[in-house]
């Protein structure tokens, strides 16, 4: 067995196990050391991933596991984002009795997402989706004594159960159709001849299953509740990280389909519906966390644009990964600020924040502007690349829809910015004591600017990635 190929994943698993044991035997007051353990495991995983970089794209473990640029790049994005989530958590979780286990769940969920991104086999894909789902449900409902958190967890679970079932059905139909679960075989069989109706059903089921993790229409409904009700660091995790894995998995799956299946049109429609719905729903929110949840839905719609033009524009995959990285940074920065502000969520409470907490307010504004795509922040380059591949691929109408949506999104992001800058409020601003959340917020904020000014480094990194298939 080529164990060396999955060393990053092994380090995450071992880290998670170590954390579970650590949390069982150590006093609750010492549990923040579990965060350090988690960071070490993630750091080790990231280091090992970097060590795998540069090899020719290939499949390993009898073809179920892809070791290509896309998998590695998205793995790095996921790991860095995971590290940020872990780093913003300790103070938030300090009072929770089960503080330590939280980090183990985060690591398991990360592992699931990485499996989604790397799966080159439908069974492996199901495994990744299920692992990340199972580890995510408790994350969403971690404050189980609080009704909104339970509601969020419940909604997440129910939608997840339904869509995971659909995914499995799709995989089974596909297996019946091709007699195989490995992507290379599936692609080969589909290319020659197959039952188009069954294939359409299978495709629909798999795509639906993945829209759940992507928080895209029609399985997006859990996102706003989770963003609002879950612990803020968990919300940061769930709005960002599963998306990365799901988007890459979807791209991998779509690239298998023969051209006569209207997968482009389907994905384009989902993309338009998702971005429009997310934006329209976000317009009138008065709760910042919920608003960020809806904005996260709309951002999935943008990401899907790159999947639409996959195979038409040669830069589609780099654009996808770059956009996901830029989105992850901005959204994590925003949630880190909210964490730092102890989950402050009503829009009215943000009035006059710029005077009382200038640094937090600045970082929040920068992250929102990056989500809009204002240059020279990293979000601008993400959107630029998306627009570029979409136009290059001949989908000008899609780019225009996305541009209109971006203007709409500017409105609700400004609805957060304006009271912070223009409002007057005398009350004190309560923040988490301690340096974890504050430092995370600062790091993410700096990454937004540095990532924009140093976009070249990021784009060199993603420039030549492609699937192993």
């Amino acid at each position: 067995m080529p164990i060396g190929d999955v060393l990053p994943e092994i380090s995450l698993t071992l880290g998670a196990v170590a954390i579970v044991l650590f949390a069982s035997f150590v006093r609750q007051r010492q549990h923040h050391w579990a965060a350090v353990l988690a960071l070490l495991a993630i750091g080790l995983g990231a280091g090992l991933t970097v060590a795998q970089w540069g090899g020719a794209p290939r499949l390993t473990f009898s073809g179920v596991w892809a070791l290509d640029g896309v998998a590695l790049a998205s793995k790095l994005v996921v790991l860095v984002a995971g590290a940020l989530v872990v780093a913003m958590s300790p103070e938030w979780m300090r009072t929770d009795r089960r503080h330590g286990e939280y980090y183990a769940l985060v690591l398991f969920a990360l592992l699931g997402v990485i499996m989604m991104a790397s799966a080159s086999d439908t069974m492996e894909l199901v495994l990744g989706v299920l692992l990340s789902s199972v580890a995510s449900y408790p994350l969403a409902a971690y404050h189980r004594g609080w009704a909104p958190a339970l509601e969020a967890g419940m909604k997440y679970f129910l939608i997840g159960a339904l869509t995971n079932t659909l995914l499995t059905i799709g995989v089974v139909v596909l297996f019946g159709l091709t007699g195989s679960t490995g992507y290379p075989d599936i692609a080969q069989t589909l290319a020659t001849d197959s039952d188009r109706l069954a294939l359409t059903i299978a495709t629909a089921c798999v795509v639906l299953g993945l829209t759940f993790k992507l928080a895209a229409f029609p399985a997006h409904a859990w996102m706003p509740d989770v963003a609002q009700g879950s612990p803020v660091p968990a919300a940061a995790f769930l709005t960002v990280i599963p998306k990365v894995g799901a988007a890459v998995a979807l791209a991998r799956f779509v690239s298998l389909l023969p051209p006569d299946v209207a997968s482009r049109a389907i994905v384009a429609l989902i993309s338009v519906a998702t971005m429009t719905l997310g934006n329209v729903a976000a317009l009138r929110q008065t709760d910042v966390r919920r608003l960020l949840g809806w904005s996260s839905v709309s951002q999935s719609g943008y990401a899907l644009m790159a999947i639409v033009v996959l195979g038409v524009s040669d830069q589609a995959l780099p654009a996808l990964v770059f956009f996901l990285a830029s989105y992850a940074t901005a959204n994590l920065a925003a949630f880190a600020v909210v964490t730092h502000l102890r989950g402050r969520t009503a829009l009215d409470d943000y009035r006059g924040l710029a005077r009382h907490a200038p640094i937090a307010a600045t970082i929040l504004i920068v992250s929102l502007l990056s989500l809009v795509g204002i240059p020279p922040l990293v979000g601008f380059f993400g959107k630029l690349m998306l627009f570029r591949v979409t136009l290059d691929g001949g989908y000008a109408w899609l780019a225009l829809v996305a541009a209109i949506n971006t203007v709409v999104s500017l409105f609700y992001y400004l609805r957060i910015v304006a009271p912070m800058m223009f409002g007057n409020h005398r009350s004190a601003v309560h923040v988490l004591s301690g340096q974890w959340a504050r430092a995370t917020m600062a790091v993410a904020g700096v990454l937004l600017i540095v990532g924009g000014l140093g976009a070249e480094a990021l784009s060199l990194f993603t420039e030549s990635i492609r699937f192993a298939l």
Partner: protein
Amino acid sequence: MILTAALGLPMLGALALAVSSLWTEATARRFAIAVSVLPVLLLAWAWRQFDPQGALFQFVEEVPWVPSLGMSYRLGVDGIALAVATMSALVFSASIAYPVDTKHQPRQYYAWMLFLQSVSLGVFLALDLLLFYVFFDLSLVGMFFLIGRWGHGQAQFAAFKFFLYTFCGSLLLLLAIIGLYLSVEPHTFDMRVLIEQQPLAGAGMTAGLVFLALMLGFAIKTPVVPVHTWLPQAHVDAPGPVSAILAGVLLKMGTYGIIRIPFAMMAETFSRYALVIALFAVASILYGAFVALGQSNLKRRIAYTSINHMGYTVLGIAAAGALIQDTGYARELALVGATMEMVAHGLITGALFLICGSFWQRTEEYDLDSYGGLLRQAPWLTAFAVLASFASLGLPGLAGFVAEFHIFAGTFGVYPWLAVIGVLGILVTAALFLQMLQKVFFGAMPERWAQFEDLRPIEWGVLAVLSAGFVIIGVAPAFLLTLVEASATLLVGGR
């Protein structure tokens, strides 16, 4: 390095103001004024060094930024850019020096002003399409915060409307820029390459769409009727100096953009639609003038004259882009006129909006009918208002006349009928300014203005500088004409 310094120094100044909380109002103000003057001096120096016989773009600087995308930090100027940039820097210095109520946040106010100065200069100095877009967008952000935080009336609403409306234009622009970028092999955002290669010539539908997106984006910014509706609200609720910048500098980004991008890079497509553009320009001229005449709000009235004046500029550009046989000289005249109009309008309307700011500081009242007879009470204010109004209505001997003369002389050679209709605009403008002056400064003075103060030394000092600018251009325009003509000849004749 001159150009980088010109836009970098204000940015550094803004950062210095933003990060430290040790500034008092007086030191922040003095520091901001000092920093804002530096770009003026640097650009004036560049002006002296500029070689009218030389290449189109001079002082070129190039540092790779995202080479894999074909994007670089490229700066450079031709005569048109240099003239507009220098004017912009000057209007910024004047606005920053002009006294204003900073609402207990002087440090933030001056930081945003310097930031805006830096990015606005960036728009005019950029030689890279994407860099141009970066600065173009950042100017919206700066303006949003300035209007929203330091405006009056419905300031937040005005700021929102401004940002959203003009951001629409920006995104269209971005899509068009990507379209241009994809049309050239190897893909690049380098303006010089795009101007030289004219990549979309004969590209039919694609060229039409890219051109439409570009023109819509710039028309919103300029603004051209019918996409001008963001302008009055933004102007009325912005503080005086910010209005001066909005009218004097930000509107120029639209017309400058038209010259730099669709006019220069898509000459063939531009010529095909030049008549349509000219028709819209004439509509702007007449609409702006007549609507301004109907306004009883001082600031609104001046805001609408901006639409009228930018209409002249667009008319000039449209005439210059019409590839009609044997009109080379007329087209060059029109382009020179358009550029002169940009410079003149920046200085004149900048001064007029600063004067509006003085009114607001004293009375918080813009209603023309509530004023009267201020001549006695405030002779200095009257003098500068009369001078700027006359300049704006195109009195010979002042900058507005030189510009409009060039535009109409040029347009007459290309579209004689449109020129004739357009001249009507000047007539209406004259009426509306004279009526405004008469209402505010002559007649009986209402009792409530008995305490009305005349201009303070700093105010008339600033106005004197701007006025000197448009008087000198009016009397001895040669220094500006040689600069602009050099580039206009290349842009018009070289094609």
